[in-house]
């Protein structure tokens, strides 16, 4: 990234819809992440149409909220840091956390170098152990069943890390959304789970309001005593403060909180539905840029330069990634099992059915010897 931030007086701030503000350098940082994220998604949409890749799903329209989220994560590995149980639209969250743009392309292009899954999983399905980003699944809402587990371990540490779980508005109909609340509010054992619902108004083609009577999604927390807030996810300032307040609550109260972000879906559900740009949806990036210019925090030229730079970065990344290797047949079974000291068949990893893998072939004919009955020496008394 070669563009320099325009010099900012430390006093300058971006003022949001409701009068709150954030420092202008933060606003510009968020802007840069949003631009980059948008370019990555747009590039990936192109790839899905050109046939370079099969499937796209991503987060255009959620960049404002997700950038603010990613920047406020306590990033690291282990229960002293935040856990992220994400939805598949979290590209900007990952960008804000520091993922290199090429990582998304590797995923999109199913390269062996894809750090998330070695070309196995869809784009947007992150898995980053260094940052506690547990594997994103396509199975809607299961992440809500898992989040209380990481939060329980965090609660025991008496530090300030929390478990952040993100899902869509349609997904709240699955029972797992409720399970998360039940398990996070057990009497005497409330858990630091930040439950986020990004409400884009749709589940694929189905409008939210045709299936849901809940006035606000956060009302679902009422019976469980879970506080919450609805924020305009298209407004950077509101998003930033909404997330800040929510995290503050979870970090200090060690209890759950519900945050609903009203966001846009700018390109339809996924490449399956064509991924054409949708008319009439608010664009958080345009909104931010308008505000930056109107409030004198950035000039049009600066903004264009940021875009150009992101574009260029994408092109370079694409060129590089396209040349990277694909997985091969040998990659099919690997990483199924962690090495185990107590497994006679798969001490290292899965390598085919018992007696069929390379190791099994070795075994065949009885290098094991006939194992003894449970009392015979054939059964090991390891660890003695």
């Amino acid at each position, binding site marked *: 990234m070669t563009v320099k931030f325009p010099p900012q007086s430390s006093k300058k701030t971006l003022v949001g819809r409701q009068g709150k503000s954030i420092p202008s350098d933060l606003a510009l940082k968020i802007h840069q992440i949003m631009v980059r994220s948008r370019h990555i998604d747009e590039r990936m949409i192109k790839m899905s149409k050109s046939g370079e890749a099969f499937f796209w799903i991503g987060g255009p329209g959620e960049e404002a909220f997700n950038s603010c989220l990613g920047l406020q994560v306590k990033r690291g590995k282990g*229960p002293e840091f935040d*856990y992220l149980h994400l939805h598949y639209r979290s590209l900007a969250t990952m960008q804000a956390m520091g993922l290199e743009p090429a990582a998304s392309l590797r995923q999109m292009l199913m390269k062996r170098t*894809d*750090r*998330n*899954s*070695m070309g*196995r999983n869809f784009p947007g399905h992150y*898995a*980053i152990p260094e940052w506690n980003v*547990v*594997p994103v*699944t396509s*199975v809607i809402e*299961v992440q*809500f*069943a*898992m*989040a*209380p*587990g*990481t*939060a*329980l*371990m*965090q609660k025991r540490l008496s530090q300030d890390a929390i*478990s952040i779980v993100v899902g869509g508005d349609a997904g709240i109909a699955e029972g797992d959304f409720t*399970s*998360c609340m039940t*398990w996070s509010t057990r009497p005497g054992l409330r858990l630091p789970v930040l439950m986020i619902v990004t409400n884009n108004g749709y589940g694929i083609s189905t409008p939210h309001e045709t299936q849901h009577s809940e006035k606000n999604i956060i009302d679902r927390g009422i019976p469980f005593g879970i506080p919450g807030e609805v924020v305009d996810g298209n407004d950077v300032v509101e998003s930033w403060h909404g997330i800040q307040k929510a995290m503050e609550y979870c970090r200090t109260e060690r209890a759950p909180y519900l945050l609903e972000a009203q966001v846009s879906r700018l390109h339809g559900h996924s490449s399956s539905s064509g991924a054409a740009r949708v008319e009439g949806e608010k664009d958080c990036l345009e909104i931010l840029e308008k505000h930056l210019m109107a409030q004198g925090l950035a000039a049009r030229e600066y903004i264009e330069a940021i875009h150009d730079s992101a574009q260029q970065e994408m092109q370079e990344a694409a060129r590089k990634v396209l040349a990277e290797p694909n997985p091969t047949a040998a990659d099919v079974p*690997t*990483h*199924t*099992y*962690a090495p*185990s000291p*107590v*497994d*006679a*068949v798969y001490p290292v990893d*899965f390598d085919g059915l*018992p*007696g069929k893998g390379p190791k*099994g072939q070795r075994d*065949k004919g009885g*290098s*094991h010897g*006939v*194992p*003894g*009955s*449970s*009392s015979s020496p*054939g*059964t*090991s*008394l*390891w*660890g*003695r």
Partner: protein
Amino acid sequence: MASLVQAVRLALHYGEDKLGVTDIFGEDAGPPLGGIFTATQGLKTAWNSPLDERGLIGMAMGIAYAGGRPVAEIQFCDYGFNVIDLLKIAGNQRWASAGAFELPLVVMTPTGTGIRGSLYHSHSFESWASRLPGWKIVMPSNPLDAYGLMLSAIRDPNPVMVLLPKALLRVKGGEKIPGEPADELELSRRIDAPVGDRSDWIPQWPDVEPYFIPFGKGALTRKGTSATVVSYGRQLPICVQVANELFASGLGDVEVLDLRSIFPYDWSLISQSVAKTGRVILVNEDTEVTNFGEHLYRRIVEEFFYDLLAPPVLLAGKHVPGIGLNQEYEMNTVPQAREIREALVKLLEVQP
């Protein structure tokens, strides 16, 4: 001698004490009950959960992600059918992340018939479980194996499911758990919660010792030459009894294998026995359409087609929607000693 459920409890105690188990939980798993079958009585990390199997498995996954070592109990395997998706996901997390995430978790659950459980407390689970790649699945048939398999389940860094045959939970073993007190009554006094108020009760754990039965190691429970029986769990002791009777009647000397591990299974043990006897019968009580025994059946025929002296036999549960409460149903739905005997006699009579 410890019963199977006492052996599980001793293993969990060892797990808490020496292997880093952080959480043992499930519906009624904590005090005061300590599990409806008493498997989790007196354990210091045992706690009661909400009545929600999806939350239960999700919780176990979360704990495992965050460095804990959970043992989750599904009260009956019959109540695990709404979490197959989560079990599948638990089994794929390492593969999906190309090795980045491990999920060292144990799910234990009572399985099968034999407690007059009617439609919803009699299901078998091993055929379903065997369809969960990424998992290891075990099923002990006696207390010592239950102890050794449970310790391995805890130590293994992958998801492991321990299927406990309901009918055998209270049955005592023929061998001691390493470190088990000599006197059976003493064991009970030390580790069984008292009847009535138990709020002040603290177990006096014996110093049980490490004993790991590796996954993929079956047991040759009865050596023989005339035919091979491959079984596990509740049906295993029945098969051994039938084999002994046949031998006593001079009808044959049948080898009985206790698989112990459903997956990975001990192919070496099976193949050597089949190569020796040429006659094989697979016995379990799960329903017979798309039954785990049919997988082994296929492997055996693929590899020993020309060595087999008779077509292999599968004895399994009938393909019906449930197992009825009246014992007429159960006795005519899952294999009984009589049928195993008849099938073996027939198998031994086949002239190649």
